[in-house]
């Protein structure tokens, strides 16, 4: 059974196995297909048109399925690997062990944002950016530059306390839990973390940075925490909403899974805190 652990609690061996599996997906070309898919949905999801992966109720189940696909790919390389999560309310400094050279490497240099250490630095020879929006082929970060502070636990609590999953107009203007977690409205949780990391994480091709998966694994965990806190609240909308994935409608690009199939994470994995 897959157990998703806090990245701060991983052993040296667990970190090495995770990194090696990611590098193998990159080498084989499978990694970049995930980047391409994500960017395609970023470009295609609009507030007043069809929206599936972002700025819509299905933001959470879409990314849950997307992470499951990635985790299964990792496990085909190394069956012992699970996606770790990054609790950015706790590990909120660029001195966190997350950014050490034995895991994800640190921030970029000021000249060009290039990450210079760790397994994903260009100089290590195994991480060329191929799915990209500009000419640069090296991984970039600028931790804590575009926004100074990561969200606090108190800010997370204020969002977890919202009892309604999502609300019309089911987009970036919505009130409710989903849009406050996504960050288009209010204290801004998920979006702000992308901005705090900077570099590729600030772009539509954000999965170019492996921290994408750890960030979204924590966003996914917050969804599970919200469900536990509000057992009487469910996914919305229920039916008949144009351009929006209702509870029992299938999601692109898989077309075989509905939000209803993804509400319970426990058939797929558990968290170290479950």
């Amino acid at each position: 059974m897959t157990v998703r652990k806090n990245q701060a609690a991983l052993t040296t061996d667990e970190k090495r196995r995770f990194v090696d599996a990611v590098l193998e997906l990159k080498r084989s070309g499978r990694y970049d297909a995930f980047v391409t898919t994500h960017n395609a949905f970023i470009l295609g999801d609009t507030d007043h048109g069809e929206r599936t992966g972002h700025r819509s109720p299905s933001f959470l189940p879409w990314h849950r399925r997307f992470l499951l696909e990635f985790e299964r790919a990792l496990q085909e390389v190394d069956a012992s690997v699970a996606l770790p999560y990054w609790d950015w309310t706790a590990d909120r400094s660029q001195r966190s062990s997350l950014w050490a050279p034995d895991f994800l490497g640190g921030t970029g240099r000021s000249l060009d944002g290039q990450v210079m250490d760790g397994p994903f630095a260009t100089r290590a020879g195994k991480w060329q950016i191929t799915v990209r929006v500009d000419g640069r082929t090296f991984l970039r970060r600028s931790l804590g530059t575009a926004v100074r502070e990561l969200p606090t636990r108190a800010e997370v609590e204020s969002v977890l306390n919202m009892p309604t999953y999502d609300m019309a107009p089911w987009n970036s203007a919505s009130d409710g839990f989903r849009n406050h977690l996504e960050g288009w409205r209010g204290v801004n949780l998920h979006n702000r973390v992308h901005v705090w990391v900077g570099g590729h994480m600030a772009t539509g091709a954000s999965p170019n940075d492996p921290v994408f998966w750890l960030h979204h694994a924590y966003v996914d965990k917050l969804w599970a925490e919200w469900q536990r806190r509000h057992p009487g609240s469910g996914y919305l909308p229920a039916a008949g909403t144009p351009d929006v994935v209702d509870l029992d409608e299938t999601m692109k690009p898989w077309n075989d899974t509905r939000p209803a199939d993804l509400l319970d994470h426990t058939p797929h994995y558990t968290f170290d805190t479950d």
Partner: protein
Amino acid sequence: MPELSRRQALTTVAALATAAGVAAAPATAAPAATGGHHDPHSPAPFDEVYRGRRIQGRPATGGHAHHGAGYAVHIDGVELHLMRNADGTWISVVSHYDPVPTPRAAARAAVDELQGAALLPFPAN
């Protein structure tokens, strides 16, 4: 080393998706029904040199597959993918999670982000 453009990348993933028996992502699908009409509240055109780069913006005629924006921005002649949020703020593909008030602000944010690098064109299907 492969120099994979985003057009090629999207083609690749479409092929992968097809091979896997699933539909292509929405970016490769037909334009949404929202395209094609002019927004009377569309921001004014602009044309300036910002940090050594020419940035231009103008209301777009006709719907673009990726936009829903009704407005096109170019950096040194290459189109920057732009999107308008429901509250009237703007984001671009290189600064996607950080809304700014105007298309010009999005263009300037993109120039800041690019640090002199060339923008790659995105597929216009």
